[in-house]
């Protein structure tokens, strides 16, 4: 889990904060802090699908799953733990 948090944090810092990560707490809301705009969500989802080979359904596109580094990590862990049927074949 720790390494997942680290991976996802690195992606967010590189892709949305352009390396300026000093103040980002892993529990910080991306929305409240203006870290991710409407396009950012799509970028994030594409990254998750590509990197972890998971499929993400429309109903999963909610802030509860995607709105902080910690939530992202938990969501990815949850998806990876699911039976293979929900993974991209």
């Amino acid at each position: 889990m720790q390494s997942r948090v680290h991976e996802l944090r690195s992606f967010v810092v590189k892709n949305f904060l352009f390396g300026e990560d000093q103040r980002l707490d892993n529990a910080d809301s991306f929305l409240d802090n203006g870290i991710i705009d409407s396009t950012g969500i799509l970028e994030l989802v594409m990254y998750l699908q590509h990197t972890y080979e998971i499929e993400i359904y429309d109903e999963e596109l909610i802030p509860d799953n995607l709105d902080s580094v910690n939530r992202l990590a938990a969501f990815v862990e949850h998806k990876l733990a699911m039976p293979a049927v929900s993974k991209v074949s």
Partner: protein
Amino acid sequence: MCGLAGILNFGGEPVDPEVLGDMVAMLRHRGPDERGLVIRNSVGFGHARLSIIDIAGGRQPMQSHNNELMITFNGEIFNYLELREDLARAGHRFRTRSDTEVILHLYQRYGEHCVDYLNGQWSFAIWDKRNRKLFASRDRLGVRPFFYACTRDALVFGSEIKAIFAHPGIVHDLDPHGLEQIFTFWATLPPSTPFRGVYELPPGHSLVLQGGQLTVRRYWRLQFEPASGVSSDPEHLVEELLELLTDATRIRLRADVPVGAYLSGGLDSTLTTSLIRRVHSGPLKTFSVGFEDRDYDESAFQREASTFLETEHDSVRCTYDDIADVFPRVIWHTEMPILRTAPAPLFLLSRLVREDGFKVVVTGEGSDELFGGYDIYKEAKIRRFWAKQPASTLRPRLLGRLYPYMQDIQKQSPAYLAAFFHVRPGDLEDPFFSHLPRWELTSRLKMFFSDEIKTELHGYDPLEELRAQLPPDFGRMDPFCQSQFLETAYLLPGYILSSQGDRMAMAHAVEGRYPFLDHRVVSFAATIPATLKMKALNEKHILKRAARGLVPDSIIARHKQPYRAPDGRSFFNGKHREYVQDTLSSSSVRDAGLFKPDAVNGLLSKFAAGHANGTKDNMALVGILSTALIMDQFILNFRRSPHLCSHEFTNCAAS
């Protein structure tokens, strides 16, 4: 249409004709037909002329018959014929047929109140010798520019900042506060400019310098007062609106050269072109810009409008490479960092117009502001509607109707759409309600500001500065009108009419004329009830009714697409562009001291990898690149135009 420049030395020493000539030389693109200088001891006016009215007699700077007054003037007074008649009846005798001379006589008669009589787009300066007074003015909506700066010994002014920078006493320095404003509002707040110590005369203001005192005064204020004693009968409003717009168009055809029209494929320019057809017989030439990228292209609607209105049509097809190629020259003309590349295609369009031999075009700007066409109005209306029942699951679904041309919005899940447009407690009472989402998104770009810039801006809040400028009753205005006011009083002059308007057209000596910005139309539109401007979520409802029969039905029915151009992608389209690499190299960014080199590098890498698609990344790239180009072209490596020889001045007088 022209360029003006001037110097007033406080200590009485004579103006140096070479310095004033150098200032005029910087404006040659605005006025390639004639150049003039008139120096009266410590006051000197310069002028670069684009001859449109009274080609032979309208030479400038112009002096009154008794030499008591002199004027340098950029713009057009569209009601000059009527004013001239009134003045002649009152005993004024004219030597020319020009509108310039009409201003001189009006000033003689009414003094500073002369501007109240003008219907037009202007900036001018008058030297009143008897009263030892300089009087300068800018039109009500800010169509024409007027900048000024002071050295220890002089007031220096011009149509563009580059003319002011040609004066050796002016310091070239970027103002971080101007930068902060642009990276919030997409424009500076007048009188600020991106440069320290250089100011713009705000729209609707006059400037007086007399007895060592410089005063800037408002002579007109944009007032939105819906439904105050005005008919709310739509049929009556439509009739009156059409009558006004037709007359506004009619007087905008006054010129001693042929007048063409821009045709964007949207409602506004199709309507103004149609109105030209109503009042003017004979051939009409129209111009438009099309895009290689279909997401931006409106050629089909442009062709349809042209066929419907039987115009002779010409267009320029814009590619990604075109935008990147002309971008540095575009920035030389905007004189301001920009967050979108949208001015670039308009630069190409004015070049086409000029090549076709036209100096004047009628265009549709102002309509979206005044008649409620922008999506920001719709967005605010939906958010407000939803906020009244925050638990509603149906109301946020309306958000899906926003921005149909923006794929990243359309692909959002309902939960995220709701999250992006969510109304926070207290937001509804905020007079900036409609604009806060845009300003907050834009403000995210400041994460790229260097620590030095952030330190200098510490404690500065651009929203507070804006709040302090607003009319006292702003907080009590109807929310729709608040939103319209912010668009019309700030973004319109600060970006649409300048970076996309005057500066792009005048880069190739083309004058734009705007029937929707006739102050009679503006004042009338401001009284129309908001519900008739946007009926439910149908934008520009009343204008669409007025356009029936004058504009193809398909253009009235189409979803409004705001004018946009490809942004970041233009610079990363396979072709290696040395200037982008040079301007944004880590060492250049570090030396300029404005942005964080590592963060800029990260942004460039994201674009190079093809991963940057979002609004924020695109605005960041265009904003950072244009700011760096401003720094290079105006601060670090400012290039004066070649010195003009005396024989290049058609009008040169000194006393």
